[in-house]
């Protein structure tokens, strides 16, 4: 009993350590965010068999960063001594921009990318001057996850991390 509780605690500690490792892996397209900030890492689990499984999900089906991320996760796990860890792809439930962490949203804003707004809201806040009056230039931007906006107050163009 005591041993089981002890190994469960060890497993939880190991899982925490892996979350930390992955928290240092930047997203290749928006490097101010880690893949944990983006909600790409779905689970880190040590099974009863001792195998560590890391679940990652793509943001968009065709996101070209997905494979780069997979390799970066592998490299981070290997460098952290988890060479036996298994990476599994998770498709369901599908990734949503709601999984962006509060920290991730703050980092986006500071970087100059407007974080996703509540889908009911029609306004997008300019990340440079804070104005709520902006116009959508295109729903498709430089990466699948971003739309292209222009601030009506300061006139600056900016990226908006769109809702999905």
């Amino acid at each position, binding site marked *: 009993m005591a041993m089981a509780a002890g190994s469960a605690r060890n497993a939880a500690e190991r899982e925490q350590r892996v979350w930390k490792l992955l928290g240092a892996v930047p997203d290749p397209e928006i490097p101010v965010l880690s893949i944990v900030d983006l909600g790409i890492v779905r689970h880190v689990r040590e099974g009863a068999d001792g195998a560590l499984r890391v679940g990652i999900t*793509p943001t*968009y*089906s*065709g*996101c*070209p960063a997905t494979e780069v991320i997979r390799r970066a996760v592998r490299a981070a796990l290997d460098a952290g001594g988890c060479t036996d860890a298994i990476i599994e792809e998770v*498709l*369901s*439930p*599908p*990734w*949503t921009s709601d999984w962006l962490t509060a920290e991730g949203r703050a980092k986006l804003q500071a970087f100059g990318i407007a974080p996703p707004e509540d889908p009911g809201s029609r306004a997008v806040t300019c990340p440079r001057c804070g104005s709520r009056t902006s116009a959508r*230039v*295109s*729903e*498709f*931007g*430089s990466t*699948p996850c971003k739309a*292209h906006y222009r601030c009506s107050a300061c006139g600056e163009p900016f990226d908006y991390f769109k809702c*999905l």
Partner: protein
Amino acid sequence: MNAAVATGEAHGRYVLRLADTALVLGQRLGEWVGHAPALEEDMALANLSLDLIGQARLLLAYAGELEGQGRDEDALAFLRDAPEFMNLTLAEQPNGDFGHTIVRQWLIDSWQLEIYQGLAASTDTRLAAIAAKALKETRYHYRFSRGWLVRLGDGTAESQRRVQRSLDELWRFTAELFAPDEIDERMSAAGIAPALPQLAGQWSTHTDQDLAAATLGRPPAQAYPWHGKRGVHTEYLGHLLSELQHLQRTYPGARW
């Protein structure tokens, strides 16, 4: 089609049809890169293309597993000949002008919306997961194509004339969208796929609403021997594939 198609084989073929429509349309849209009328639209079409190719990869990988002959997504995309492709005939039609591409896109987006919505409730959990993900992307695609359809239809006399002409030209290929064959019927009976005749009514209602907003006339239904899903294609697919497959055919096994 031979009545002797086993359910397992029908399942694989059903998934392959979805995959091929996504792949062929994605490749077509990729031809626009660097050629669209404005930078924003160039990026939009490239984004749509990327999503579709991503969906195709997930579906192709699955179709390969169902087939069980060791073909992966790359083998299926790059090493099949045109008669082995099962995409909708509409998807392989050439881009034409921007309005023509928009009409083709809007027709397929509105079809995919219905299909993916239905598939999200599939008893096949893997297919349901792929569809649920693709559905979110398709909603963005549809907003884009519908938006342009309305702008061009309800635009100038010239833009109206041109998109109406494209609509008239492409409409005959829509006969294939909801016409079930043995594979569709078998998948729908197994709870794997939605029943096509039911979706046809919803699709018709939605497209009529869009056409009204775009001040475009719905062309009359035309008898057309639809055949892309059965592997019989228009002359355009071979040319598309020769570009898509050129590298793998010339340098078999080449890798990045």
